[in-house]
C-alpha cells in the first residue's frame, strides 16, 4: 500500500465505538420522520383538525404525495445538512486536538497531507451515508403513510436535486475543517457553522442569498421555486471557491503551522 493510502484505514478505525456517529444519524433522521408526520397530518387534516405542523406544511405549499415528500427531504439536506455535516467536519478535524492525539499524527511515514485527505474521504463517506440513510428512511416512512403519485420520472428528477444539494452542502465542510485545525478543537468550527447559519438567514432575508455560499444549498433544495431560479453560475462558483479555499487552507495549516 502506498504511503498516501495508508492513512485511510486508520481514519475509519477511529470511528469504531464512537457514539457520535449514531448521534448524527439519529439527529438527521428526525428530518424525514418529522417531515413525514407533517405530511401525514396534512393529508388527514379533515379527520384530525389543524395542527402547527400541518399548517406549516400548507404554508410551504406541500401536498401529501411522493414528489412533495422527496422535495422536503431535499430541503432537510439543504438546511439541516449544513448543521449536521458541519458537526461531522468539526468532530473529524477537531477531535484530534480535543483528544490531544494530533501530536501523534505529525511525524509518521504517512504524510501529513495524506492524513488530511483521509479525513476528507471519511467526511464524504459519512455525509453520503447520512443522506442515503435518510432517503431509505424516507422511503419507509413514505410507504407507511401511503403517499400518492409515485412517478418514477418525477422522483428521479427530485432525487437528482437531492444529491446535487448534498454535494453543495458537503463542499461547505472544508472551511469547517480548517477551523477545526486552526482552532484546535470543536468550538471554532461549530461556531463557524452557527455563525454562517445566522448570516445566511439575514442575507436570505435581504434577497442576496444567491451570493452567499451557505445559503446556496438551501435555495437549491427548492425552498421556493423563485429563489431557486435566482441561483446562477456565480452562486455555484462561490460555493466551489469556498470549498477550494477551505481545502487548501486545511492542508496549509496542518503542514506549515507550528503544532504546539
Amino acid at each position, binding site marked *: *500500500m502506498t*504511503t498516501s493510502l*495508508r*492513512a485511510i*484505514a*486508520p481514519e475509519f*478505525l*477511529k470511528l*469504531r*465505538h*464512537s*457514539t457520535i456517529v449514531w448521534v448524527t444519524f439519529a439527529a438527521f433522521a428526525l428530518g424525514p420522520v418529522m417531515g413525514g408526520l407533517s405530511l401525514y397530518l396534512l393529508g388527514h387534516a379533515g379527520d384530525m383538525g389543524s395542527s402547527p405542523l400541518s399548517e406549516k406544511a400548507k404554508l410551504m405549499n406541500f401536498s401529501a404525495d411522493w414528489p412533495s415528500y422527496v422535495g422536503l427531504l431535499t430541503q432537510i439536506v439543504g438546511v439541516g445538512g449544513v448543521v449536521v455535516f458541519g458537526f461531522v467536519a468539526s468532530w473529524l478535524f477537531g477531535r484530534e486536538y480535543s*483528544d*490531544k*492525539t494530533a*501530536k*501523534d*499524527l*505529525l*511525524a*509518521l*511515514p*504517512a*504524510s*501529513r497531507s495524506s492524513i488530511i485527505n483521509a479525513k476528507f474521504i471519511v467526511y464524504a463517506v459519512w455525509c453520503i451515508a447520512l443522506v442515503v440513510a435518510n432517503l431509505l428512511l424516507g422511503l419507509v416512512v413514505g410507504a407507511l403513510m401511503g403517499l400518492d403519485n409515485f412517478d418514477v420520472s418525477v422522483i428521479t428528477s427530485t432525487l437528482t436535486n437531492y444529491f446535487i444539494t448534498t454535494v453543495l452542502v458537503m463542499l461547505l465542510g472544508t472551511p469547517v475543517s480548517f477551523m477545526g485545525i486552526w482552532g484546535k478543537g470543536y468550538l471554532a468550527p461549530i461556531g463557524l457553522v452557527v455563525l454562517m447559519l445566522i448570516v445566511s438567514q439575514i442575507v436570505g432575508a435581504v434577497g442576496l442569498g444567491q451570493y452567499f455560499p451557505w445559503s446556496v444549498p438551501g435555495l437549491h433544495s427548492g425552498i421556493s421555486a423563485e429563489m431557486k431560479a435566482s441561483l446562477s453560475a456565480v452562486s455555484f462558483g462561490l460555493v466551489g471557491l469556498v470549498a477550494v479555499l477551505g481545502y487548501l487552507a486545511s492542508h496549509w495549516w496542518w503542514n*506549515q503551522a*507550528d*503544532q*504546539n
Partner: protein
Amino acid sequence: MMIVETNNLTKRYGRATVVDQVSLQIPQGKIYGFLGLNGAGKTTTMRMLLGMIKATEGSVALFGQKVPGNASVWDKVGYMIESTCAYPDLSVVENLNIFYRYHGLNDKEVIDKVIARLKLDQYRDVQASHLSLGNLQRLGLARALMHSPELLILDEPVNGLDPAGIVEIRRLLRELSAQGTTVLISSHLLSEIAKVADTIGIIHRGVLIKELEANQLHNEIERKLVLNSHDNVLVADLLQKNGIPFRTNAASEIEIMDRQWMSEPDRIAEMVVAEHVGLTKLFTFEEDLESYFLRTIQQ
C-alpha cells in the same frame, strides 16, 4: 553519521527565546538524557526535532536527513511527546492498530509482542479512557516502539509510572540501546536521567548550559568534609599551618574540599583533639544530584 544533529537550533515566540542555539550530536546506540526544569525548552526542542514546530534559526537533521523533509524518515523514529493521549473510545489493541496501519506494517504479531513487552496484556481490550495514567504511558511507549524504530524520542516517559514501572522502562531503554537504538529522553529529574543516560545535556532557559558523560557526573558532584568545633579560629590556624585548604561556610563551619584530606577525616580529628579542642561536628557531605543540578543552572 550522527543519528540526531542540531545546529544552533533556536525558537523564538515574539521576543521570548524559548530555545537558544542548541547544538546536539547524538551517535547511534547512545542514550542522551535531556535535563531541565519545566519550561526549560526540552519539549520545544523535541518538537523541533520531530518537525512539529519550525525552528526560527538553525537546523535539525535525523539520520543525516534534514527535518522537515521526506516523511519516510519517520519510519525510523518512535516518539512520545508530553503526556500520552489515545483515542478514548478505542481499546489498547485498537489504538495500536491505528498506528500499525500508519506505519504500513505487515506482521500483526508486532502488536501482540509490544503489548507483552509493555505488560499491557490484561488491558489489551480495555478502552483507553479507562486506563490509569501509568498504563496510558505504557500504551504511548508501546506505540512508539511497535515499529522497532532506530531512534526513540521520549519526553518524560516515566511520568505516572510506579517505581516498578520506572525500573522496567529503564531496563527496556538500556536493552534497546544495547541493540543499537538511539534514545533521546527528557526529564526534570537528574536522578532518573543519571541512571539511564550515557550523556546528559542540561538545558536552562532554552540554553544548553552543560553536556557531560554520565561517568563524569561522579567527579562533578561536590563533596566536602564539614567540621565544627568549640574553637573554629584555632582549628583554622591549625589547618593553615598544616597546609590543608579549607573555607568557612555561612554557618561559620569549616569545609575541607581537598579530595585527599576528605578521605582522611580521622587524621583531621586527631589533629584537632591533640590541640584539646572539642569537635562538635565532623562529617562528609556529598551533594545529591538534584542539588548539583540546581547549582549548575544557577551558575
